[in-house]
């Protein structure tokens, strides 16, 4: 049974570019959340998707957007990349919004 899978594993971009990160949830999970984790800090909640709609959002600017597809997979899009966007981006899935989450291994995004 595959867990949460994320792609790509690593990504290097330059300032001003746009990036799309992808996530496939654990089988049977329909709720997907995205987190940003800076070095030495805990994951910071970006947003959560359920039934293809954004249900909750953290304190992130509109440059961060997402999408959930009918098969429950999800994308995180970040526009106009800044140096400060360099971080580990984690995707997590759960059976419902208030259930424990299963995390992928993340995408390491580096902005030059």
């Amino acid at each position, binding site marked *: 049974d595959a867990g949460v899978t994320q792609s790509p594993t690593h990504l290097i971009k330059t300032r001003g570019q746009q990036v799309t990160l992808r996530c496939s949830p654990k089988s049977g999970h329909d*709720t997907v959340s995205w987190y940003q984790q800076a070095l030495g800090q*805990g994951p910071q*909640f970006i947003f959560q998707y359920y039934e293809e709609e954004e249900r*909750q959002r953290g304190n992130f600017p509109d440059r961060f957007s997402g999408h959930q597809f009918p098969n429950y997979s999800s994308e995180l899009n970040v526009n106009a990349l800044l140096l400060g966007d360099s971080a580990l981006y*984690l995707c997590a899935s759960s059976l419902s919004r*208030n259930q424990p989450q299963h*995390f*992928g*291994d993340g995408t390491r995004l580096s902005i030059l």
Partner: protein
Amino acid sequence: DQQVKQNSPSLSVQEGRISILNCDYTNSMFDYFLWYKKYPAEGPTFLISISSIKDKNEDGRFTVFLNKSAKHLSLHIVPSQPGDSAVYFCAALRAGKSTFGDGTTLTVKP
């Protein structure tokens, strides 16, 4: 304003002894509290949770205690094993939004 705080960045214990990891929170509206363990180059793994209406939950070697009046929770690991060495994150959950602390690195020495 950090709503969930883990004030000890690191903890070192001897194999077989008890490990106690602590976490403080400020928002009394959280519904659940969870502990995750993270190994290098891997995503966090769910360990144990507790509902805000409980004060204790036990699962094998892991026990979580919740003190609502003090807005404090702790994770006890007994007995500690070298394989428990990892970063432990405390998280608080409300309406689908999880708020994490910055983690405590636990080292269990053989």
